[in-house]
């Protein structure tokens, strides 16, 4: 029972990561646009959900006590809107600008969450967020299981929708945009629109991921907004296979599994009092996995199924 309840907990978190990884896959895997601020959009989603669904905090903004489903929708919309504002000036430029812009927005979002205490309660965070199913399910285990079912359903829904989209004529345009940065500049307006669309939609998914997280743990704080999160999602996508939605999901489960397993193993091996070192070793190890994958198997565990002619892949 203990193991089972841990497994459910583990899978919920992996599923939450998977939603963000699917978002990055839409941006990077399919359209070739870079987002170095995944955690920023995740954070916007998490805080949005907290405000929409949370209780009325006396010392912070909001708390509308609405249903979590409303929170999920609001999180997607607000994260997408932030992406729109960031994307508008940067996305028509070279990839580097979007990379730097998204990196910057993520840092700013964390700064706001930390320092705008009258709205965010700073490091105290927003707590007591409603957990769906908690009341109805009876036991915490049943609630988590119900949450897992919901997360899996959302992932399936999102994945099937994405699969349909990327196989449509619109999806083929994404690839055209991805294959060549300069040629897509010649596509002009269309390329710009397609890039912006995928950037906004992908960031919306990252926001959804944040909302799912907020209502699962019942608590959000600036501690959840560290660059490590972005890095984890990178590794998940690279390991799973960028350009493959199922790969993105697989990568999330595999890397989250490794991440939690190493914590257990390292804590057991190293003497107590070295928690900082454990966390650091784990990050270095996952960094090595990222680099090794990029070098040795850049296509990932589940490679993209190509329907592009090989000539279109040639470098100029």
């Amino acid at each position: 029972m203990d193991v089972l309840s841990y497994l459910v907990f583990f899978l919920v978190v992996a599923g939450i990561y998977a939603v963000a990884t699917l978002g990055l896959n839409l941006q990077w895997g399919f359209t070739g646009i870079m987002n170095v601020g995944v955690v920023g959009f995740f954070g916007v989603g998490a805080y949005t959900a907290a405000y929409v669904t949370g209780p009325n905090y006396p010392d912070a903004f909001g708390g509308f006590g609405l249903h979590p489903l409303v929170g999920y929708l609001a999180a997607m919309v607000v994260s997408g809107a932030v992406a729109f504002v960031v994307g508008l000036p940067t996305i028509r430029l070279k990839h580097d600008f979007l990379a730097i812009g998204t990196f910057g927005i993520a840092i700013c979002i964390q700064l706001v969450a930390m320092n705008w205490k009258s709205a965010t309660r700073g490091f105290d965070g927003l707590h007591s967020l409603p957990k769906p199913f908690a009341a109805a399910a009876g036991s915490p285990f049943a609630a988590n299981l119900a949450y897992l079912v919901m997360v899996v359903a959302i992932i399936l829904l999102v994945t099937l929708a994405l699969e349909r989209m990327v196989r449509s004529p619109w999806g083929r345009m994404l690839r055209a945009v991805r294959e060549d940065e300069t040629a897509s500049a010649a596509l002009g307006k269309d390329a710009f629109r397609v890039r912006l669309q995928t950037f906004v939609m992908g960031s919306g998914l990252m926001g959804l991921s944040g909302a799912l997280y907020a209502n699962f743990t019942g608590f959000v704080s600036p501690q959840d907004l560290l660059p490590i999160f972005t890095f984890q999602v990178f590794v998940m996508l690279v390991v799973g296979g960028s350009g493959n939605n199922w790969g993105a999901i697989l990568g999330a489960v595999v890397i989250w599994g490794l991440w939690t397993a190493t914590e257990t193993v390292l804590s057991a091996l190293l003497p107590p009092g070295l928690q900082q070192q454990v966390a650091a070793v784990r990050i270095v190890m996952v960094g090595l996995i990222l680099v090794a994958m990029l070098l040795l198997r850049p296509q990932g565990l589940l490679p993209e199924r190509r329907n592009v002619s090989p000539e279109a892949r040639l470098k100029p």
Partner: protein
Amino acid sequence: MMQVIADGLVAASFITLGVVGLSMIYNILNFPTFAQGDHIAVGAYFALGVVALAGTAGSVAGLSFGWPLILGLFCAAVLTAVVALALDRAIFAQLRRRDASRISLIMASFGVALMLRYMIVMAAGHDPHYYAFAITPALNLGGVRIQPNELISIAVTVAMVVGLHLFLTRTWLGRSMRAVSENPTLARVNGIDVGRVVRWTWIIGAGMAAVAGVLLGVVVQIHPFMGFELLLPMFAALIVGGMTNIYGAVLGAVLIGLAEALTIRYLAPEYRQAVSFIAVFVVLMVRPQGILGEKP
């Protein structure tokens, strides 16, 4: 007001020393490396190691440091350059050889950045360190209060930027670098060994970052995130000044440093980094190529 300018120039000196390398790496290797911030921290910790071995940071001429730290500065520059070269050899060169996309390079650099940062944590923990605890009296220059250490930072930065300018315009290797940054193929046709230029780019870029780290450690403190916290200001300086122009990057660093000092003084110190981001945004809206950049 003069005080704000002085504070801004001090902040700008660290940004400048970091962004010059960032700009060179960007122009020659064609991607913005997210590891440049952590080169700064790595350098600071290498010097800390030397000072720890010597047992003291020493003290000369009213400064809070002396020969051991100066020796540490040189060791830090060399060792950080070696680290950057090794990382290039093991990772970035391999990716280039495989014709990896720029996004892969950016991602790899992000991974390298985290690895460097947390290797520091592994070795030295999260707590801040200092080269020395000696307190030096601030100088009063016509009403502007400035630490001798801060003056040294500005002076070293100016000297290094001038030196770099002379190197880039007067030496064959420097000119080769400018040539490679513009057109690597034509550079090879001219008999320039691009591999050698790339190696020197890492050496100079990481070496200057290490100097930034040591100076920042002397003026403020040493901690594992000290370089990461400079990354956004450096990127901002790069964009504000113009990605393709190293002098633009220096100008950008000065502007960002002044903007930060103004924010600290008149707005909210904790939002210092956000200023960089807003500057980036304004510039991208108005003049995407930056102040001194060329139209693409």
